[in-house]
């Protein structure tokens, strides 16, 4: 624009603001900071911020803002040119213990011991794909638009796969994850989570667990593929630096290894998820989801018990309080899926259609919720607070995956939206 600007940032975002300014080419940008938060403060409290001092510089805040716009630039502030941010040497040499500590101290781990990525181990990993080590797999950023994306090679993905404890057989799956550029550590003050549904014969080839404990720490493939995604999200794009490129206020334990959900295709009454998306049953596919947390579904009202539990009614009651910013992903034990089949839901589409029509909220409720929006357009003109509207206007907000070991007819539900699907076979 060529117009002088004075950004004002609340202090909770100090590190983010300073590093982002540097990464975007203005390392000396004149940023003023205010106390945090601004939201929820009275007019008098906010005016008091202006009359007070910048909590970082200690200077009178508005005087500093005026100064930002009027004090002549220094020679450094007027500089142009390019620079490449350093990422460290290509290799590190030390004892095993010192290397573990080095990786941990430099933010390259999930704070748990890693498998050290020697050239031998990385070479073994690389044998599991036909792709060349220096081929670019993709680009990733902790938040689109906020940080410039980094690119990464097949070898760099292999290094992270080794660190996660993955075996070479898992590598094409991990490469497919990397190819999407989706970070598992999205930078938002919401502590968001990521999930991937795995479909196709690869689930059995890798001996993935889609039975008892499928989403828990009970299987090497499930665990290390998910962990590799987290480590990639830290290392391949400069992400996961708390306070700088990760701002989740509380964090989420799911981020350690994400929700890896191999579908229990053989015990499901319905076609698998990837077939719904147009893939062939024999294709190996990953389908990605993203959003708020996951929770248990056993508390839904209207379930009843006899003669057949009304799973659909309970599922509807369970998602009604969800924020409509994201959709609903139901993870159904096969007992629930087959029960729903007995209730007449012969396809996932029928179930989604029923839920979309029967899951409703009032306009008043929506207005009182965060991250939920009201309908727009002509149909919204006549709405009052007491109007009853669909929770989600689109049926594709509802998604289902069958997973679990049939010890009881339970389900879990995640306030998450579908993003995209990719083929693992492209990376074998």
């Amino acid at each position: 624009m060529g117009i002088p600007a004075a950004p004002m940032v609340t202090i909770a975002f100090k590190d983010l603001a300073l590093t982002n300014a540097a990464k975007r080419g203005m390392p000396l940008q004149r940023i003023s900071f205010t106390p945090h938060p601004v939201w929820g403060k009275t007019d008098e409290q906010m005016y008091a911020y202006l009359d007070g001092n910048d909590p970082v510089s200690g200077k009178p805040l508005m005087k500093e803002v005026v100064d930002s716009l009027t004090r002549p630039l220094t020679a450094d502030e007027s500089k142009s040119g390019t620079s490449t941010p350093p990422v460290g040497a290509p290799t590190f040499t030390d004892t095993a213990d010192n290397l573990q500590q080095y990786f941990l101290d430099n933010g390259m781990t999930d704070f748990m011991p890693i498998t050290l990525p020697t050239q031998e181990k990385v070479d073994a990993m690389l044998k599991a794909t036909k792709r060349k080590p220096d081929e670019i797999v993709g680009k990733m950023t902790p938040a689109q638009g906020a940080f410039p994306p980094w690119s990464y090679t097949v070898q760099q993905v292999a290094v992270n796969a080794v660190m996660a404890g993955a075996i070479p057989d898992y590598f094409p799956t991990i490469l497919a994850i990397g190819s999407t550029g989706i970070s598992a550590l999205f930078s938002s003050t919401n502590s968001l989570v990521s999930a991937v549904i795995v479909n196709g014969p690869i689930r059995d080839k890798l001996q993935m667990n889609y039975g008892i404990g499928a989403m828990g720490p009970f299987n090497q493939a499930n665990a290390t593929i998910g962990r590799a995604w987290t480590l990639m999200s830290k290392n391949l794009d400069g992400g996961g630096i708390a306070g700088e490129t990760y701002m989740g206020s509380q964090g989420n334990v799911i981020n350690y290894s994400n929700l890896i959900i191999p579908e229990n295709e053989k015990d499901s009454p319905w076609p698998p998820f990837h077939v719904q998306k147009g893939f062939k049953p024999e294709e190996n596919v990953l389908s990605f989801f993203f959003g708020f947390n996951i929770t248990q579904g056993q508390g839904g009202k209207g379930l009843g018990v006899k003669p057949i539990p009304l799973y659909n009614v309970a599922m509807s009651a369970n998602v009604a309080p969800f924020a409509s910013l994201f959709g609903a992903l139901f993870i159904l034990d096969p007992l629930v899926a087959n029960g729903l089949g007995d209730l007449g839901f012969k396809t996932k589409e029928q179930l989604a259609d029923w839920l979309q029509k029967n899951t409703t909220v009032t306009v008043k409720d929506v207005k009182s919720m965060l991250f939920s929006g009201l309908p727009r357009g002509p149909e919204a003109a006549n709405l009052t607070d007491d109007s009853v509207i669909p929770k989600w206007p689109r049926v594709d907000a509802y998604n289902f995956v069958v997973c679990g070991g049939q010890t009881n007819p339970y389900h879990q539900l995640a306030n998450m939206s579908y993003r995209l699907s990719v083929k693992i076979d492209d990376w074998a």
Partner: protein
Amino acid sequence: MRINRRNILSLMGMSPALLAGATAEAEQAKKTKTKTAKGVAAEAKLTVLNPRGMPPPITLIPMAPRLSTLDDKTIYLVSDGFPGADAFLNQISIWFKKNMPSVTTVYRLKAGGFADDDPKLFAEIKAKGQAVIMAIGH
């Protein structure tokens, strides 16, 4: 019959970690100690690869020239859309009325996400304003 490779290796008294293809590591484990000139065992060193990806080069952007004074200038107060930014910028407008009454302030909400450009707004500011104060965060 499905073969559980981990169980077979364990029954043979071998670590399932060998499934990682780390036969090189098994051999290296035999060489954990080397002798120094004084005969004292020293821990062997490993060389490992850097897991980081490749950031794009940064193009340094020179800052826009500053104004000699804000008197009689028009300052755009721009909200990035986060909660509270509009109310906070309103207080800034009040501050200018009280302390620098010759300054004209104009409030605008930037379109898109917090990191998105808003070309229409930026064109307006360039045409009609002389400075910007932007509220970021909540």
